[in-house]
């Protein structure tokens, strides 16, 4: 009995010393990781506590989150949202904008990275890459200003149109122009930046594979299809999962800046509605939090579906 106890104590002590040794070995990395952990905890995990507001009757800043003045209402705010006359238009607008943006925007950086990689001159490729990355650093407000310069009533497009005998069009007041302007400007701004990750993946392709393909008789295009594209497929899968996971997470800023009375029918998204309900007029923060939480749940579900599907079909997954 005494021997068994002593042996168990020995095992537990050796485990403890092993864990301590590992901790000590990895201490420089853990120290480097510490600020990131603090930031993620402070700004991503701690605010989750605030979702309780979604179950308050009517939260007012300054109220206690755990002891609401108006009391708890359970899922009432969610029910109110589902019954809201804006529910289906908001879902449709958000979903369509995101889905079209995804379909147009997801393949674009892949195509650009493959083209840059296949460019003969390294110098030319570098120059092009720098040019493509530039727009990413333009602020959103400036971008909308540029859209106004190009597509505004007295903008460049209308000037050209008029000089060719056409009539000026109020693009910012037209529902049909909102999505193309939103999606194309977003893609113009970010396609170069998003391509960086694929360019990095392409730089790891063994040049021997290209040479083998050349000897096998593959053309430049065939090499892109049979050597480059398969090489970045794991990264494509990963980015696909992450994009689908954030599909409905479109921010309110750009849509809000582009919003006019004329295009409100298509430019009002879940995020702009949350902003309007939570911060702007007729404030109802509990209701706005419930809508935001609902949106996040959709994203989590999409992420899980995308991850499971990718794992099943391509063996690539986030977890």
């Amino acid at each position, binding site marked *: 009995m005494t021997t068994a106890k002593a042996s168990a104590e020995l095992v537990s002590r050796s485990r403890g010393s092993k864990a301590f040794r590992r901790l000590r070995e990895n201490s420089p990395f853990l120290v480097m990781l510490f600020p990131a952990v603090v930031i993620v905890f402070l700004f991503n995990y701690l605010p989750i506590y605030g979702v309780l507001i979604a179950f308050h009757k009517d939260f007012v800043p300054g109220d206690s989150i755990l002891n609401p003045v108006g009391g708890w209402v359970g899922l009432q705010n969610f029910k109110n949202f589902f019954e809201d006359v804006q529910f289906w238009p908001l879902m449709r607008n958000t979903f369509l904008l995101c889905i079209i943006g995804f379909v147009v925007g997801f393949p674009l950086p892949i195509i650009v990275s493959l083209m840059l990689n296949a460019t003969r001159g390294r110098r030319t490729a570098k120059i092009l890459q720098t040019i493509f990355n530039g727009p990413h650093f333009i602020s959103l407000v400036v971008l909308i200003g540029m859209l106004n310069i190009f597509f505004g009533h007295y903008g460049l497009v209308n000037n050209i149109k008029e000089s060719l005998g056409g009539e000026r069009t109020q693009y910012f007041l037209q529902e049909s122009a909102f999505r193309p302007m939103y999606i194309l400007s977003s893609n113009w701004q970010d396609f170069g930046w998003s391509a960086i990750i694929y360019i990095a993946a392409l730089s790891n392709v*063994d040049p*021997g*594979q290209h*040479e*083998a*393909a*050349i*000897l*096998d*008789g*593959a053309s430049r295009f*065939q090499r892109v299809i*049979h*050597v480059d594209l*398969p*090489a970045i*497929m794991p990264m494509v899968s990963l980015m696909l999962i992450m994009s689908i996971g954030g599909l409905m997470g479109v921010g309110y800023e750009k849509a809000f800046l582009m919003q006019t009375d004329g295009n409100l029918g298509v430019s009002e998204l879940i995020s702009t509605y949350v902003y309007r309900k939570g911060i702007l007029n007729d404030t109802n923060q509990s209701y706005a939090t419930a809508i935001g939480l609902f949106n996040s749940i959709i994203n989590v579900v999409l992420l899980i579906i995308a991850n499971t599907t990718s794992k099943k079909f391509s063996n690539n997954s986030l977890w």
Partner: protein
Amino acid sequence: MATLTLKNIKKVYPNTERTTKKRKKKTDEPVKEKANLQITDEGVVAVQEFSLDIADREFIVLVGPSGCGKSTTLRMVAGLEEISDGELYIGDRLVNDVAPKDRDIAMVFQNYALYPHMSVYDNMAFSLKLQKVPKDEIRQKVEEAARILDITQYLDRKPKALSGGQRQRVAIGRAIVRSPQVLLMDEPLSNLDAKLRNQMRAEIIKLRQKINTTFIYVTHDQTEAMTLGDRIVIMKDGFIQQIGTPQEVFGHPNNLFVAGFIGTPQMNFFNDCQLTLEGGKYAVTVLGTSIPLTDEQQAKLKANNCKPGHVIVGVRPVHMRIDPNGFIGKIEVSEMMGSELHLHLSVGDSDIVAIIPTVGLNLSDYAIGKTIGFSFSPDLMHLFDPETTNNLI
């Protein structure tokens, strides 16, 4: 299968704008030697004056130290590098400007270069698919190649599920499935461990019997060169040092470099030797002892009009023999290799190696620190000119 003719092939990697500017700032000298690279105004010269005729179905091995230009030469034959100057013929066709795919060659790469997302079958079938060969014919050819290389059971696997040796077989299979006129191999065994390398070397010898094609094989391993090649091309600093059969390059090395490069352990060199000529007869003084040369050696020295003076004497370790009346050397290291003993001896200023058979040998007589007598037969001796490094006999 085809003959190959390389006429005065030269490869120059042009200077980039940046290196040209740097060079102009530093020096106006036209030619500069840096390590083993020759840098000229044109650029870095990797290969020059490379001329070789390769017979149909011949197995040629290009061998030399790193940076000697052997892989560059192979890549020029493949069409992966442009030929700066000279002519390359495959059969009767000048192929300098012919695209690699139209040269009817195949290549096995050092790191296999298999397509990781394709199965073994697809890897081997890829070139045939691009040529739009009918599916049945592709299957037949791939299965035949797989049978030859004994990889039939792996056809459905991806390369990452194979061992190094199996991957190399697939790489060879991918090359032979096209029945190329010339099969190029760029250090195909260098990624394998010693045991597997020996095994694959034997496989390549067998493969050669099975497929009728011309081989050009690049290696820095002289054992591979000696065992595989019909002829060996020994290169250094972009120049051919010697072309010959394994016996020729081993028995009659052209110069000091070839003598030192071919053979393991390398040839022993006695640096301070004198070639003397007395009464019309040449003799060489090694470690203070005058050794008369054979009639054949005399004739060669006379034909070359060699003048007496300083020479370097080379003797292979296997040609050393124990001789109590010979030179005296102190054993520094004694390596028991099983059937033979490698003795590292210090003799005067020279360190030499002698290989002696262990049959009937009392090993305690050859312990470290002991002294032994040794000699060598004059007809197995090589004389090198210290200035030109050329073999004099």
